[in-house]
């Protein structure tokens, strides 16, 4: 594993138009909340 002491905490995400990791985490979390919402809707719709 190459040493990446300098990049351990401030490495960029490398994703287009997303510079901060916190933004990545927020997007991922939003997607998961959307999934839980969809499954809740599925449960209620077919109840």
């Amino acid at each position, binding site marked *: *594993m190459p040493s*990446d*002491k300098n990049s*351990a*905490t401030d490495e960029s*995400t*490398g994703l287009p138009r997303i510079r901060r990791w916190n933004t990545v985490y927020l997007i991922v979390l939003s997607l998961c909340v959307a999934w839980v919402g969809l*499954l*809740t809707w599925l449960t209620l719709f077919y*109840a």
Partner: protein
Amino acid sequence: MGRAPDLVDALLRVNALDYLVLVGVLAAIALYGMWRTRGQGDLRTYLHGAGNTHWLTIGLSVMATQASAVTFLSTPGQGYENGLGFVQNYFGAPLALIVIAAVFLPIYRRLNVYTAYEYLGKRFDAKTRLLGAGLFLIQRGLGAGITIYAPAIVLSTVMGWRLDVTIVCSGLLVIAYTVSGGSAAVNLTQKYQIGVIFVGMIAAFFVLLAKLPVGLRLSDAMAIAGGFHKLNAVDFSLSPDRRYTIWTGVLGGMFLALSYFGTDQSQVQRYLSGSSLRESRLGLMFNAVFKIPMQFFILLLGALVFVFYQFERPPVFFNTTVWQRQVDHGSGEKLHALQADFDAAQREKQQQVTAWVAARKVGNGAAAERASVAALAAHTKSEAARNETKAVLHAADPRNTANDSDYVFITFILHYLPHGLIGLLVAAFFAATFSSKSGELNALASTTVVDLYRHIIRREENDAHYVIASKWFTALWGLFAIGFALFANLAENLIQATNIVGSIFYGVVLGLFLVAFFLKWIGGTAVFWAALLAQVTVFVMYASLDISYLWYNVIGCAACMLFAVSIQAMLGRNHSTIPPNMPSEVDQS
């Protein structure tokens, strides 16, 4: 006495093409992995790979290590039997993966550790490192046995293979390429194995849709599944004895995932092989995004198999080998009578379901409602016959009825998929076993060499010596897992057994790491005794309480942290807790 008719029937369903696909796919992946990763010279390359792993490879590798054959064999059975509720188990996983990517991962990479337990040694002391490594070796060693036993028992039963030969052959193949190529071979083979699994599962899904009755749309199939309560994915009940609710899933599931992905070396080793922090983080985020949809898809497959069997004749008991054996051993009259009751109820249900779909299509709500009520009543009768069959089989031998749902999906595959695809699906189940087991063996060997052998027994040897030792320990752990699998006698549903073993140990291990990361004033002695006390507490509670096993992740973790705080308070303030330059928490970018 010859083979049971159903078993002979099953054997005839697998032809030379299936065996060609099965053996060809598995051997090709293993041999390619060995060839591409030959000559791994130094210890770091052998245990962590060349350090150039792309995020997608890491993501697939993390996914493949977690998703064993149990996931793809047993989970559709859960969907068939109990609906989508099991998906809640994974609701906490994305949150846990985010915490690991933001907090755990930068610390591991900054310290350049081989194993997660090496961090405990640097943060606390040698005995705490050994405790963390020991708990991992116990539970993961047992888990590796289950990983190989679980699919072998199901596949050997339905395919008519000898269980011991299935376990030994599959175990030796995975040992061969894991010993040969180390972590790089694990990463490489996992990528192709998960590809085979996805292709196989998606193909099975489309064949299933094609096999539904002509004119039955997916929306109709969903309505039927919903009518039989198979689409109840989310349960908001606060009852502590419910195994899967949104609360156990979010809270217990988060602690389970935090511990498994964050502190279990079989996972830590996978994402530490990334070429940079970015690649490792993206690999984890890949899993955070796809974990819930993947489990949903597999469970939905099971629910749709249930719908499919409303128009076909399902067996009253899917493990027909056990059913037939009991018929031959004196319970034949009773079991045949129950089969007749079940068939009659199924015929009645089929009529009502057909009427229900027809009424839905013409928009006759009242007729649809009447038909659905009648179909549910017929379902109650068929379930009564199925449950009584289970009771008869259970009375004859308690092991008979424990995991019939594990046989649902493989029965569907053998009876309804075309040749070639049957071989591909069976190959996919073995590929899933291999991918999990290789990751586990790689991690068990790393921990044994780095945290025990190199740390205590042989401290001053060269790299070549430790590489050879790693290969030996990989082989020994593989043989241990094979031995455990040969003598295993599991009673629970397979996937639950795996999770239960994990949950009993994971909470305490997670507590150790959370204390290390966040409670800076606590030292090694306090956390060591706290972890031991917490583990005993979990054992006692597991033996005496009847609560969802997911809660033990929370309880073990909380007990470890609380005991650590209390013991440290009794010992007095620790002045030598965190060594200089030792990160506990890390800034997030």
